[in-house]
């Protein structure tokens, strides 16, 4: 697939998402804003899992680092949204860098366990400092505290636009990154790490870079989520929020730029629609997931790439 067609396809998605806000009914308008922020999280996860081949079970730590980095700055630091968002992103960069230094000494299952344990430790830390974080209950970020550069982010239109801007930014970063030599080296590490090392690359430094980029994007999504939807709670640091991006990326297509969004959209509406039919909606969702894993093991976009768009990044 030629570079210009790739660009048209990916920019087309962003243009389509931008245009949709003018036609969608309020309910789906709100959903899509939420999906775009969560998809930004999935894009971050995909850098490490899909492109570098490292399966982390601890990304909720980064998502929560961003969310609490932002929310605590507003709640206790009295900061305005812009510096608070920056604090969230920085918190994610620092936390992912530190965890990377420890966790990257392991591979495979051990890496999964180490990331999982540190994320659990992070979750417990949030509960432990309940005086600041209000523990399980979390805290609401008031409407007055969510005005960024004069734009009230609690308003649906502004919120949609902010979510779109965030998603566009990380989506384009991801598209750019995986076509750069650095991103191509990450893909090569996924395919055959020892060979990459014996071509003269410092694979540890590359994996460290991937994990920090992945964690920082995840933290950006976490910070934006808290700010746009006005709430920070410990449940976002729970293991569930480490599993979600894994599922979204797997369903959409690991190692594709479009996959994280497609997977997040699909999963969100799968649960939304099936819960409208029956209270046992997780059963329907589960069956569909099993079928997809059986018949589209590379995810939706992964199958598209295999069958139609060869060379899709």
């Amino acid at each position: 697939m030629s570079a210009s067609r790739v660009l048209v396809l990916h920019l087309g998605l962003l243009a389509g998402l931008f245009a949709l806000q003018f036609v969608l009914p309020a309910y789906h308008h709100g959903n899509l804003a939420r999906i775009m922020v969560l998809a930004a999280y999935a894009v971050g996860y995909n850098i490490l899992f899909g492109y570098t081949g490292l399966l982390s079970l601890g990304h909720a730590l980064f998502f929560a680092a961003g969310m609490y980095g932002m929310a605590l700055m507003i709640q206790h630091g009295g900061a305005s949204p812009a510096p608070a968002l920056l604090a969230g992103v920085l918190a994610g960069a620092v936390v992912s860098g530190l965890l990377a230094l420890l966790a990257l000494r392991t591979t495979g299952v051990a890496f999964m366990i180490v990331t999982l344990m540190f994320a659990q430790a992070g979750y417990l830390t949030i509960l432990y400092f309940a005086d600041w974080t209000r523990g399980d209950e979390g805290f609401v970020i008031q409407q007055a505290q969510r005005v960024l550069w004069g734009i009230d982010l609690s308003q649906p239109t502004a919120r949609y636009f902010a979510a779109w801007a965030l998603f566009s930014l990380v989506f384009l970063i991801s598209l750019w990154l995986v076509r750069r030599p650095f991103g191509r080296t990450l893909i090569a590490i996924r395919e055959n790490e020892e060979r990459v090392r014996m071509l003269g690359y410092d694979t540890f430094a590359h994996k460290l870079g991937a994990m920090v980029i992945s964690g920082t994007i995840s933290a950006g999504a976490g910070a934006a989520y808290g700010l746009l939807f006005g709430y920070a709670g410990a449940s976002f640091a729970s293991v569930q929020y480490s599993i979600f991006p894994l599922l979204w990326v797997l369903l959409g297509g690991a190692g594709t730029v479009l996959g994280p969004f497609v997977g997040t959209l699909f999963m969100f509406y799968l649960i939304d629609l099936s819960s409208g039919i029956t209270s046992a909606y997780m059963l329907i969702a589960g069956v569909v997931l099993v079928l997809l894993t059986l018949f589209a093991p590379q995810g939706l976009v992964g199958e598209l790439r295999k069958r139609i768009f060869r060379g899709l990044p």
Partner: protein
Amino acid sequence: MTLLSTRGLSKSFDGLQAVTDVSFEVAKGDIHALIGPNGAGKTTLVGMICGRVAPSAGQVIFDGQDITDLPAHRRIMLGMAYTFQITSIFPGLDVAENVALAARRRHPAGDVAKAVAKALTQVGLAPYTEETAGNLSYGHQRLLEIAMGLVQQPRLLILDEPTQGLSEGEIAGFKTLVRDLKSETTLLLIEHNMSVVMETADRVSVLNAGEILAEGTPAEIRANAAVQAAYLGTSDA
């Protein structure tokens, strides 16, 4: 002039002595073959030279610099290139990208495509540039390995059993390629195939049971009684 030398290089794995006190030298511009029966420690020795295996004792000196403590990727950047005994390519990526990954460490971004095309032409894989590497025949995958080594323009190219599993015709082509490379680089060739060794090498080192058994020109090695004994198992050596 010596490009690579080892001094008293040894490796034991949990008490099993794989390589014992090996000191040998590879002269610049030579095709130096390292031969020996199965289990003689060839791959372990080469692993210590290129940094995949940490030695228990001894030193590796490359171009006058002690590189014993350098990690593998730093040694590669000093001008070593290593091709794996068991084909180790990126099967999911296309042929050009496989070679480009090797080239990017050596060439400025603008020259990568040209260097890749040149290396692929040199090994005869130019028609397969856009093929997925995993779909290549076994022989072609071996050639791809060599192209990945060549494109780095190494000062020392280490080929670990490059002709293993190749057909007679492919081996003949390989001999020609190796002779052509002699003008460009120094080669350390770990090889089982005696016709390849005898027809291409300038010097031969024979490793047996982890120790250097003999060293010399191909003709000297062929005539060496101890070498014959090691290979044929005669006891009257």
